[in-house]
């Protein structure tokens, strides 16, 4: 019997395991999911924890319970993958597992220690991140005690998970301080390495407009070299860029550098310089060997590191694993499709939908009658809230969601006029 080993039981790993389980007769293949811990976190929920709008308990469920029966779940830390001999080695007692197909779905790892001073005396005192359960919870307590001053939200460098999340944090912080009646005592600054609010021009303009309308200062092309903070109460800290600009803060919310999982670095040939796995952008087959695939945040693709991408990739990838095992040609059908709800505060949200070739545009999704794109709306906010049950019961269970296909829909979008031939 062929064995498919899936490393990582998060969004991508879980939904691919469940899709493959449904695709084969019981007993036709062995599917093993490996993860180092037992907690599946609904990561979009982390954004809401610092503002008391979600609890860490409500966004966490056991990993094994999300897997369909017939899938083997193995909790173990991975030492390295021996790509040449099709074998995963585990830490500790020297156990290993052979595979016919390997799927890397171990996501991205936060690397706060790679930025000078970030994990220094101020870490978890006046310097926080909301990208972990512990960090989001600690930040919630710090925000409760924050009575005014300078709050800097900083992205150290790309790529990061959910590139819109730090912007959403700014919008929700504006809302939060307003509700507490102290917005006029808080200076909010968004400090980004990009040359605008976001990576893609149309969305960048819209989002910069929203920042300005909410009185949030935007500092661009800021390549964070170090974070200076004594951690002493009442003492300010500074973000310092490599070109020696400084942004002072009383409270800093920093999104640290990201890299691939640590075992990728220990697995010869598997990852790139940052530990992400190079894959074909359309088939998701790894460049290192034909029986290795990857999806989600773990890949080197120029797509967002977001759950929606893992979802759209999952359908293509599960089909390609089947084709590979059957000796058929792979389908080169993944188009880089991503979509995200962007909370803009006051019970509204934007929706963006894009792929490798088409930037986020205005219009409606998934067709002319649908959710408004790139425009704050109550409907989008409700969509974002409604998404969590859909995530647990539909998306990661490997079910198709009616009307939502992996390929990006062009219908409903205000596409730019085609360039006339000859130009």
């Amino acid at each position, binding site marked *: 019997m062929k064995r498919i080993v899936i490393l990582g039981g998060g969004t991508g790993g879980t939904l691919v395991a469940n899709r493959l389980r449904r695709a084969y007769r019981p007993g036709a293949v062995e599917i093993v999911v490996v993860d180092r811990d037992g907690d599946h976190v609904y990561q979009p929920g982390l954004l809401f924890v610092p503002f008391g709008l979600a609890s860490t308990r409500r966004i966490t469920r056991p990993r094994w319970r999300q897997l369909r029966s017939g899938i083997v779940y193995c909790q173990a830390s991975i030492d390295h993958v021996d790509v040449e001999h099709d074998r995963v080695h585990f830490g500790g007692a020297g156990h290993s597992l052979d595979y016919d197909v390997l799927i890397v779905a171990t996501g991205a790892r936060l690397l706060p220690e790679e930025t000078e001073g970030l994990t220094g005396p101020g870490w978890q005192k006046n310097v926080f991140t909301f990208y972990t359960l512990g960090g989001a919870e600690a930040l919630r307590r710090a925000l409760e005690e924050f009575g005014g001053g300078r709050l800097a939200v900083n992205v150290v460098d*790309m*790529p990061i998970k959910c590139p819109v999340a730090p912007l959403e944090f700014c919008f929700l912080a504006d809302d939060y301080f307003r509700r507490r009646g102290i917005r006029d005592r808080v200076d909010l600054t968004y400090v980004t390495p990009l040359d605008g609010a976001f990576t893609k021009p149309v969305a960048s303009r819209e989002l910069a407009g929203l920042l300005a309308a909410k009185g949030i200062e935007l500092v661009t092309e800021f*390549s964070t*070299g170090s974070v200076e903070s004594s951690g002493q109460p009442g003492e300010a800290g500074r973000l310092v860029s490599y070109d020696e600009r400084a942004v002072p803060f009383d409270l800093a919310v920093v999104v640290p550098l990201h890299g691939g999982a640590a075992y990728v670095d220990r697995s010869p040939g598997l990852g790139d*310089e*940052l530990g992400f796995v190079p894959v074909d952008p359309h088939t998701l087959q790894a460049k290192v060997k034909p029986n290795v695939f990857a999806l989600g945040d773990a890949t080197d693709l*120029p797509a*967002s590191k977001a759950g929606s991408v893992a979802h759209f990739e999952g359908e293509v990838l599960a089909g390609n694993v089947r084709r590979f095992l059957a000796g058929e040609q792979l389908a080169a059908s993944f188009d880089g499709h991503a979509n995200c709800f962007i909370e803009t505060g006051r019970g509204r949200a934007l929706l963006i939908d894009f792929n490798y070739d088409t930037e986020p545009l205005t219009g409606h999704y998934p067709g002319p009658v649908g959710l408004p794109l790139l425009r704050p709306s109550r409907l989008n906010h409700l969509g974002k809230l409604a998404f969590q049950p859909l995530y647990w019961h539909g998306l990661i269970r490997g079910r198709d969601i009616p009307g939502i296909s992996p390929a990006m829909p062009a219908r409903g979008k205000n596409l730019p006029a085609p360039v006339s031939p000859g130009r």
Partner: protein
Amino acid sequence: MPTVTYAGHDVTVNDEGFLTDPGQWTEEMAPQIASAEGIGELTPRHWQVIRFMRAQYQAKGTGPTVRVLGKTSGVTVKELYQLFPKGPAKVAAKIAGIPKPRGCI
């Protein structure tokens, strides 16, 4: 596309000044491009980065980002900013005659 003359050769560049055809580039052009970017003299450390950028582009079809440069070129990010104060990946790519490194999303 504008045409400019570096080291006596006409080359085409895009709106941001990056060579559109890396094949047109020669090492003799580098000091002139650098000087337009405010870099007076190219030291051996500059050249280490420029040659590394060229090699990476030839191997991978895209220039490395600052972070990858810092990890793999043998020059730290801090020193990269001292060598190319206006942004190492972008400026070094321009001097090396390769396209602007693809940003992440």
